[in-house]
């Protein structure tokens, strides 16, 4: 059913339909509207969940870990500083194979303190073992939660997942969203059935320490599960498409890429602007296309290579920077393209919520055509003089 909703609310409703048993919430801009909406649902008996107002994000994810270990489907949401505070628990959760799903309302990392959007936060946890999905719009922001739970909880995956969507740009923007019903979601996403749990009828110990004789194999198993999740994303995503008309089986989206000269690569809401800019540039005769990454972990290296091998140049729009090196997307796309001759140019863009317009995309394409790249786009030189 089409509804005109704020992104946060679309996500809150999607989460409600996923029937989490335990929600741990700590407020942080720009996630707060999600946890407030969920609190409201619980208070009004629309959502039957244990809602915990915890004392920090670190505690939020720790509580989720405990509840998941006890056999519950769980949920939390955070961003930026909160996610950074959860760093330790993120590795713990993935290592212990608890399928926690968390919304990440992407926001810049301090210092300097910023409440505005970029993707540094979730990208900085790309080593942690969490699946990472990036939504282009509020529709995807909602839908990807159903997909995330289904993939995460599959017994061949059993890894936690981030559903990332851009702070303010998506979270606080109203868009028309086709919201599923509870019955529809129940048909797609079954009840969580843990492979193992804390249970006095069948006692197990979780979280032993591993000596050098064992540690590597445990880590290998996580990596294998993560890479194998690509298959689960394909099947769960296609199933979603068959049931509801929106297919999420592909980890990348190719927009006007088939005959493209210059391929732009990006994740998240910026892709909406990019697509509009591409349409304009196409009218002007420029052969530009977009490869959008919807899944960042597992990294769809094969798909990226296949999509980009035949373009003349790749311009990466990175809403993050691995300081002292390059943007993460550029580094990983380059790795996927290793051995091809395709030049890859990195543009660090829109950090800390700096606006991006169609003209900026055009400008990036023009720079790429001149071979000028691997730079921070749009710096205010007057501040740096």
């Amino acid at each position, binding site marked *: 059913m089409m509804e005109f909703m704020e992104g946060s609310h679309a996500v809150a409703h999607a989460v409600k339909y996923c029937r989490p048993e*335990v929600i741990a919430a700590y407020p942080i801009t720009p996630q707060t509207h999600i946890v407030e909406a969920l609190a409201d649902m619980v208070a009004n008996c629309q959502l039957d969940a*244990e809602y915990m107002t915890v*004392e920090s994000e670190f505690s939020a994810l720790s509580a989720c870990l405990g*509840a*998941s270990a*006890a056999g519950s489907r769980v949920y939390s949401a955070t961003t930026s500083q909160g996610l950074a505070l959860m760093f330790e628990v993120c590795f713990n959760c993935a290592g212990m194979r608890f399928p926690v799903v968390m919304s990440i309302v992407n926001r810049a990392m301090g210092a300097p303190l910023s409440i505005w959007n970029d993707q540094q936060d979730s990208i900085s946890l790309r080593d942690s073992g969490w699946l990472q999905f990036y939504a282009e719009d509020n529709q995807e922001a909602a839908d990807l939660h159903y997909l995330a739970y289904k993939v995460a909880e599959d017994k061949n995956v059993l890894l936690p997942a981030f559903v990332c969507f851009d702070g303010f740009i998506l979270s606080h923007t109203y868009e028309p969203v086709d919201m599923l019903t509870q019955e529809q979601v129940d048909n797609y996403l079954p009840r969580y059935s843990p492979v193992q749990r804390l249970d006095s009828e069948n006692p197990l110990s979780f979280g*032993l320490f591993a000596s050098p004789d064992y540690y590597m194999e445990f880590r290998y198993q996580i990596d294998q599960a993560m890479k194998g999740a690509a298959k689960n994303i394909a099947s769960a995503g296609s199933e979603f498409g068959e049931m509801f008309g929106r297919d999420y089986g592909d980890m990348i989206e190719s927009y006007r890429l088939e005959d493209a000269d210059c391929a732009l690569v990006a994740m998240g809401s910026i892709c909406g602007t990019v697509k509009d800019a591409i349409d304009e540039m196409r009218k002007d005769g420029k052969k530009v296309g977009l490869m959008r990454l919807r899944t960042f972990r597992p990294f769809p290296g094969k798909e990226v290579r296949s999509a980009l091998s035949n373009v003349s140049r790749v311009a990466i729009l990175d809403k993050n920077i691995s300081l002292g090196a390059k943007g993460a997307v550029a580094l990983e796309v380059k790795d996927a393209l290793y051995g091809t001759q395709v030049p890859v140019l990195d543009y660090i863009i829109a950090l800390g919520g700096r606006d991006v317009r169609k003209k900026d995309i055009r400008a990036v394409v023009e720079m790429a055509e001149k071979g000028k790249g691997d730079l921070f786009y749009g710096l205010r030189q007057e501040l740096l003089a």
Partner: protein
Amino acid sequence: MSGESCGLFEYGHRACGGCAAALAARTILDAAGKDTIVVSSTGCMEVFSTPYPETAWKVPWIHSLFENNSAVASGIVASLKKQGRKEKVIALGGDGATFDIGMLCISGAFERGHDFVYICYDNEAYMNTGIQRSGATPYDASTTTSPAGKCSSGNRRPKKDLPMILAAHGAPYVATASVAYLPDLKKKVEKALATEGPCYLQVHAPCCTGWGFEGEKTIAIGKLAIETGLWVNYEMEDGKVTRVKKVVRKPVETYLKEQRRFRHLFKPARNDAEIAKVQAVADRNAERFGIDIKLKK
């Protein structure tokens, strides 16, 4: 009990011989029974009991991180409540995990009022990492990060009063106990588990390796701690002290001189000034809790 003499905490664990924490774990599980979920913090008890693939725990058990056992326990309690399950939840942590790095989570869990029991096995230092000072380290104790030396007589700060802090959170039942008095410890574990809401037990666990005495003296040392007034066994209900173990008090040096961590107070020379300060700690405890048995002349 599970049929073997070790009960729910299996032998074969790697605790030092004479380890008070191991004794505490056995005793606690004996009192709690099999329908208990235990959440351990990183530390001696976790490390000596669970080197993969061995585990000494015959109840469901989880270890996450050093500082979050209270938060993990909170999540478990919430989940069990939602599922309508009846298992009890005990969070077990050493003093480092409880007094210091875990303060955030224990405060939050107690403030939210979850129905669980937090038991701190207090060996008064970070033992698993090699005897470093914690917020529970008593005044003048020598640890590797508060060593006694030419210009130091050891730990400069008094022991943090965590039972009081948690009572102030509204915990309905807070108690201290010791491995020196196991039936008392068992009773307190049972009482805490039977009391609804967040309950706290602080169990004195003299550490032969860390404090410097022979493993066979673990219980004797624990008794001396209580007999000198440096440790008080008491119960608090709804914030009021309701029961205290009374003693005929011995001077603190009967306890101090048995332990390497206080040896600097006696060798190379007696440090009367510092011993007097430690005595003052004991005297204050005695007055505050009323532990002195008044002998009739």
